[in-house]
């Protein structure tokens, strides 16, 4: 978005070509999380809290390194740890940075009834506008990744913004900035996709991870956070990453066919009774027919 404002199309009193005109810039941004080089240091968790102004939350010890069971309304970035035993008996500590995936086809946005409480920017960021949030929690039901979280005192739902405030002024998200191993990357979607595929190929050919691959689920139209996984065939191993996430069927039925059937039904009903009145009129009781008509069939 910010790039569009710096791109020239016409210049007054200018001889010759317009510099940069016709340039085709890609606006779609993407975060790449390479789980194979994550060391689980949680610098991204801290950077997220710092940038977004949240204090550290109480942690839950659950016999793992994980800070808490799932992300919270004020804890948008959480590394999920899984001690995974492989077929040959060796152990792997799988670590995946969990946050909003910024789906191209966002279930939260589809389910939301409040005008402009959730917006999707042209660069792919899906952002909650808390001022317009009515706190219904439908987004929590629409999301296939369990990301939006409700804050009871404010009655609003919060989630990762992909640091929209930083990205819009040309900075990378706070988590990317903090990562010491370079397992986090930020750039355009096509660049990140290319980098991820290169890395996956490297893992397959050089490191013996035959099933290494990129997680960019097509069921939600692709995401603006993509993962490199050692085992792309079993994303569930990485802290319950869904294999084929999509907007839930019941949400699609509710916002699709049911809406049409319902609206048609309501209008049909209201018009129907009006037409009935025009055709047949009211049931009027003649006050003198009381004793005349008393027969029971």
């Amino acid at each position: 978005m910010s790039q569009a404002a710096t791109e020239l199309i016409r210049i007054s009193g200018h001889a010759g070509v317009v510099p940069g005109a016709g340039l085709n810039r890609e606006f779609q941004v993407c975060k790449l999380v390479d789980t194979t080089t994550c060391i689980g240091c949680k610098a991204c968790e801290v950077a997220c809290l710092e940038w977004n102004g949240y204090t550290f939350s109480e942690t839950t010890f659950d016999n793992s390194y994980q800070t808490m069971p799932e992300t919270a309304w004020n804890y948008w970035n959480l590394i999920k740890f899984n001690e995974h035993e492989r077929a040959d008996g060796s152990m792997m500590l799988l670590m995946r940075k969990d946050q909003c995936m910024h789906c191209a086809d966002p279930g939260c946005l589809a389910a939301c009834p409040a005008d402009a409480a959730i917006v999707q920017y042209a660069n792919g960021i899906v952002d909650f506008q808390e001022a317009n949030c009515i706190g219904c929690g439908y987004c929590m039901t629409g999301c296939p990744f369990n990301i939006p979280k409700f804050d009871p005192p404010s009655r609003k739902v919060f989630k990762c913004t992909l640091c929209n405030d930083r990205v819009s002024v040309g900075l990378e998200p706070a988590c990317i900035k903090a990562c010491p191993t370079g397992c986090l990357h930020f750039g355009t979607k096509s660049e990140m996709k290319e980098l991820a595929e290169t890395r996956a190929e490297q893992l397959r050919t050089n490191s013996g991870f035959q099933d290494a691959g990129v997680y960019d689920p097509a069921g939600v139209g692709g995401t603006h956070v993509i993962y490199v996984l050692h085992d792309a065939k079993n994303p569930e191993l990485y802290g319950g990453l869904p294999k084929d996430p999509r907007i839930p069927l019941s949400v699609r039925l509710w916002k699709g066919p049911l809406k049409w059937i319902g609206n048609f039904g309501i209008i049909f009903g209201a018009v129907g009774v009006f037409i009935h009145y025009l055709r047949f009129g009211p049931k009027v009781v003649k006050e003198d027919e009381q004793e005349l008509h008393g027969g029971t069939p």
Partner: protein
Amino acid sequence: MSRDPYLLPNGRVLRYSFHERLVHWLTGVSYVYLLLTGLAFWSPWLFWIAVILGGATISRELHPWFGLVFVFGVSLMYSLWHRQMKETPADKAWWASIGHYIRNEDDQIPSADRFNPGQKLLFWGFFWNGIVLLLSGLILWLPQYIPWNLRFLRLAAVFVHPVCALATIALFIIHVYMGTAMERGAFGSVIRGDVSRAWANKHHHTWYEQLLRNSAARK
């Protein structure tokens, strides 16, 4: 001569007691609020209703509480009327002549008791849909307490709640139309409580005859 509680001295018949009318309007007013705020959440084209009713945040906050009032009203109605709402073998004949009823060919309709089978359908429709609306509504009220592995409950609730609401809207449209425009005298019966003897005889003949028999037995 002791005064008959139903056959009023001015040639009127008591159709609904004060208690019944109060329960009716408690349920009715809460339903209308639920309907309006529910429609606001149903479609973006109707979101303005929530704005008029004090904003969507307040509507979302109050909708569940009004739901509890509504369910309370329905349960009072159940205790008042469920015996009279019981389906009887005679109802089949009434439904068979529903065409006559719709065309106002009233002399060809089997006589009705205190509640005709159409009213029974309305009552049980609201009763059963009310139960499902309550259960799904509780889930929608506090979704943050439904853990992720019980997510199917939330997914079911977001679909079932509007389906049942639409079913009640169908009943509601017919109920309001019949109670205000179609059946002259019916609206007064739920406001002041009484109807004319001719009205009672025409629309609820079996009930009226029973009142007459009871009155005669009392004398």
